């Protein structure tokens, strides 16, 4: 008999599970050694509670009602539930808090290679550690984890959600025009970005050139030295992180001044993990200095998550060479 399962979900059989377990064990070993305590939270949360966090592009896809008529949602990531947990259960704990998790999250994506509606994440949250030191610790732990898993060719894209906003501020671009420009940036449409900037009719041709060019810059630390004026100040946060990275971590970093993430709680540095064996990122994260405050305990924080299925595909790809 064949019995169907929902689109975007799947069963895991022993051969695959053995390989997933070894990835999880490697990550767990690193988290443990670095002093990150493992937590678990319910897969179901009240919709109103998760909504406090704001989820942007990662809208919860599955909702149900409990016997009292409350709307429950399957979590779409672990960061918002952990922010809730920290505000509730660690209200007076000593800082910084180092937490890690291995958990499934659920999103309404279109299933394709390496993308599922139910996916297993391994991640960390470092709470109460401000930039740049906290960000550098998170990035170092990310490299330690990927190294321990056995990936050799990965790179980490590092950007800053505030960078382009600062540029727009400096040219006094606000209101609808600003929203349209940011929409094109988030949609990864540089043709549309150029069109919207042209429509501003800015008097300064250098400003126009800067607004179009900067979000397209990717490269090594030398990239940050090429910036001038406002852009140089806006990239100061990235420079401070870079100064704190060990060479083995720094050499994995690709600075990406146009990097965007589809979660809207990020406030500063953001990052994504790439492997040449996979067409989409293996995971990512960033700073979310406002999120804890929304739950009632204002603390700077940074975290990241790896999507284990994708890590597995990339690892298999690297090993098949």
């Amino acid at each position, binding site marked *: 008999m064949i019995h169907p399962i929902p689109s975007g979900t799947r069963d895991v059989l022993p051969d695959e599970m053995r390989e997933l377990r070894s990835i999880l064990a490697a990550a767990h070993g690193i988290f443990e050694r670095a002093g990150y305590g493992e937590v678990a939270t319910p897969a179901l949360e009240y919709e109103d509670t998760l909504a406090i966090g704001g989820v942007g592009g990662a809208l919860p896809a599955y909702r149900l009602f409990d016997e009292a008529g409350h709307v429950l949602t399957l979590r779409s990531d672990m960061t918002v539930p952990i922010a809730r947990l920290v505000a509730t259960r660690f209200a007076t704990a000593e800082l910084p808090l180092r937490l890690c998790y291995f958990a499934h999250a659920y999103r309404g994506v279109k299933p394709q290679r390496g993308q599922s509606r139910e996916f297993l994440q391994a991640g960390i949250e470092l709470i109460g550690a401000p930039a740049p030191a906290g960000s550098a610790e998170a990035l170092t732990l990310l490299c330690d984890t990927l190294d321990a898993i056995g990936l050799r060719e990965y790179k980490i894209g590092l950007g800053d959600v505030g960078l382009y906003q600062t540029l727009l501020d400096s040219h006094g671009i606000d209101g609808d025009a600003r929203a349209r420009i940011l929409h094109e940036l988030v949609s990864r449409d*540089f043709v549309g970005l150029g069109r919207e900037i042209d429509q501003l009719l800015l008097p300064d041709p250098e400003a126009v050139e800067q607004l179009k060019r900067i979000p397209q810059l*990717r490269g090594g630390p030398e990239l940050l030295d090429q910036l001038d004026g406002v852009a140089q100040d806006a990239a100061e946060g990235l420079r401070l992180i870079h100064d704190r990275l060990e060479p083995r971590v720094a050499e994995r970093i*690709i600075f990406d001044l146009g990097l965007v993430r589809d979660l809207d709680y990020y406030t500063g540095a953001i990052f994504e993990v790439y492997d040449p064996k996979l*067409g989409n990122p293996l995971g990512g994260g960033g700073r979310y200095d406002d999120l804890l405050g929304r739950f009632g305990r204002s603390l700077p924080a940074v975290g990241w998550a790896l999507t284990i299925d994708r890590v597995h595909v990339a690892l298999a790809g690297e090993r098949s060479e």
Partner: protein
Amino acid sequence: MSALHERLVIAVPRGALMKESLDLLDGLGIDTSEVRANDRKLLFEDVGIVTMRPSDVPTYVEAGAADIGITGKDVLMEQPEREVYELLDLGFGRCTMVLASVAGDDAGARALRRLGVMRVATKYRKIALQHFARTGRQAEIVEVKGSVELAPLTGMVDAIVDLTATGTTLRENGLVVREEIATTTARLIANPVAHKLKAGAIDAIVERLRAA
């Protein structure tokens, strides 16, 4: 051919955009003669070219099966969920997305007035829906795969949303343009991971195309 290009796999659209796409690649020093000479072959590993219908280009590029690709803006507008970078307007393949109906009294406007809803045939379901939503009108979208022009002639629908380059096909079928929805041209797109890991090679191509 320079070493820079060797590392990129390029998705080239078959059909109306193919010749100019290949001309463009020639200009970058990529040898496209084998592609031009071979109508059935799809994968040209030596030069890093894969050929496919334009609407498949975002699929291959998003999955990373191709690093960069060329396709029409109409295709990208119809597949907004694709996570690809749109790097450059290549300028060629200029077409207009239009709302058209049978010449004479506009059946679409009449339907809206008397029935409150316009029946529209199209291959571009999302573009059509968005256009009607944006202009505050109700439309019932009928998706067809073949010649859209047939649909209003048989009375199945009141109007069509379709892409037109010269308007000849519309005219020959007695249809007139009622509204212009968007102008579309060929675009250069890139996979989000290749855009970071192969930044040098991709930027080199973008710079040369921009200067051309």
